[in-house]
């Protein structure tokens, strides 16, 4: 057991299984008192159970660590406040928040129902906002350094076919990370994001047919492509925990507003979006001028991720 997070209090949402569980266990091993949040639902967001969170609390306690369970839904603003309050009531404060809870409901955009859109946005994006809002409010009042680590995804950052809801939510979390990091940085709070790739019960729901379709059209996600070349193609969800924990330590005090991709033993820093090429005129372009200039300027080497099929 290490002592990097000794005396710290961490809240990890969706910590009953998969990536969240791995982070909860490692943070506890490093000395943090942990709130294990999980509403114990199915992968599509239905159902509830206390068993997932309880099991992880049991594991942490058996290892000599401190932990309490919380079963609230991150998607509910008031319930999210209760998740943060569970940390305050049980351990006196909150130092670390990991926004990890998530669900999946994949569908092609032209068939995606309003309910499938709303449910995924509510858990991922609204859930990350709810917990971040309540946690940073408390951290700022405490006048102590704070750490927020949110799970984004290459699905939204790069774009994955069939995941308009999930991709929007996850790219939204990237935006939330970049904006909120600027709101809270001066109070000694950092907010960063991890786009993880791992084999969990969530990724297991992506059908083999969908994977094949993406591959054939050359739109396989970078994660899937890179994965096949790895020595351990089945990426272990526990591989995400070391870097997530690193971001919560004092060593990472000045890393703020960044997004990292973590898959297995690969850890990458992502770029900030920025202008790469610009055309400027003295006054407003006409559409005709842009059409004439575009291919040899802005449009050089542009890649169409899904070209039109000629039938």
């Amino acid at each position, binding site marked *: 057991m290490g002592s*990097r997070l000794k005396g710290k209090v961490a809240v990890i949402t969706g910590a009953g299984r998969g990536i969240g569980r791995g982070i909860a266990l490692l943070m506890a091993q490093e000395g943090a008192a942990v709130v294990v949040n999980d509403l114990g639902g199915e992968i599509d967001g239905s159902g509830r159970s206390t068993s997932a969170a309880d099991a992880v609390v049991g594991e942490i306690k058996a290892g000599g660590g401190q932990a309490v369970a919380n079963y609230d839904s991150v998607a509910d603003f008031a319930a999210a406040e209760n998740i943060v309050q569970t940390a305050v009531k049980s351990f006196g404060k909150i130092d670390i928040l990991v926004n990890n809870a998530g669900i999946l409901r994949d569908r092609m*955009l*032209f068939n995606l129902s*309003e309910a499938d859109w709303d449910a995924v946005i509510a858990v991922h*994006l609204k859930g990350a*906002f*709810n917990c971040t*809002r309540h946690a*940073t409010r408390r951290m*700022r009042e405490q006048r102590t350094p704070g750490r927020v680590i949110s799970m984004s995804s290459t699905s*939204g*950052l*790069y*774009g994955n076919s069939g995941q308009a809801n999930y991709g*929007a*939510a*996850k790219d*939204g979390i*990237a935006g939330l990370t*970049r*904006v909120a*990091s*600027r*709101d*809270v*940085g*001066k109070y000694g709070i950092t907010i960063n994001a991890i786009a993880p790739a791992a084999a969990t019960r969530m990724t297991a729901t992506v059908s083999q047919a969908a994977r094949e379709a993406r591959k054939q059209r050359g739109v396989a996600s970078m994660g899937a492509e890179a994965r096949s070349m790895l*020595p351990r193609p089945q990426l*272990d969800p526990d591989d995400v925990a070391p870097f997530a924990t*690193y971001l919560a330590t004092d*060593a990472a005090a*000045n890393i*703020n*507003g*960044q997004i990292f991709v973590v898959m*297995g*033993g*690969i850890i*990458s820093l*992502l*770029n*900030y*979006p*920025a*202008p*790469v090429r610009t*055309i400027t*005129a003295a*006054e*407003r*372009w006409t559409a*005709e001028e*842009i*059409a004439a200039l*575009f291919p040899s300027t802005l*449009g050089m080497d*542009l890649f*169409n*991720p899904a070209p039109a*099929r000629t039938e």
Partner: protein
Amino acid sequence: MLKDRVAVVTGAGRGIGRGVALGLAAQGAKVVVNDFGVNTDGSAPSSGPAFDVVNEITAAGGEAAANTDSVSTWDGGAGIVGTAVKHFGRIDILVTCAGILRDRMIFNMSEEEFDSVLAVHLKGTFNCVRHAAPLMREQRFGRIVTFSSGSGLFGNPGQANYGSAKAAISGLTKVAARDLGKYGVTANSICPVAATRMTLTPEVMRAREIRKQQGIIREERALNQLENLKPEDVAPMVAFLASDYAANINGQFFLCAGPSVSLISLPRPLKTIYKAGRWTLDELDELVPLTLTEGLVNPAPPRA
């Protein structure tokens, strides 16, 4: 350039949306001018702005129809797309400009401030794209131009709601490009910078007066630059993306600021560390500062 095309422009009663509607109409498109006619915070709906722009288009010899639905409901999205089908028989082009602002630091932001901004920008974009997508797929042609923002891509303080919504729209656009591309439909996004009632707010103008009295010049210069960026400047790039010339431009992001148009980079790994196995914290402690985070600047460092 857009002769006989049918376009829907949301939030087209004022600002950038109005400029886009006029620009598309000038290129020959028949335009549905959608505007819920609210204040910048989403309050007090009115049908005035949409009909004003329809009148402007028809006075110049173009064809246009008004729609005053809110983009933020599923049925509103259906009604907006339905207006195009009802009046002009199809929808070829969808441009989603409708938006509101409710700025607040995240630790003080209310649930209502978050929800209302997300509802108009993100759900509003989804509602319209979702209802347009099956029609565009069926006709094997479509042009979707969404509006994202530098706020979410680069990070603007005080805009956790707006920045999240706009970044989520960029994610939605990237997936839409991949879900629809093979059917001859493209989805691209504009990050505009322009002087509108959304950017030159009463708060901004009041702060400007105070700075003027204090003789602070730097911000004044930036504001003068912003004032020179007209909302109408965004329209030509949108018209180009909606045209046949842009058939193979898909899933891209463009920054439009006055007479400048920039291609924006997509997310990609800058630096990578790799190990054939799980990293330990000891290893990360040693390696990360020398590699991944070397030279990173905290955009809002702690105050001493």
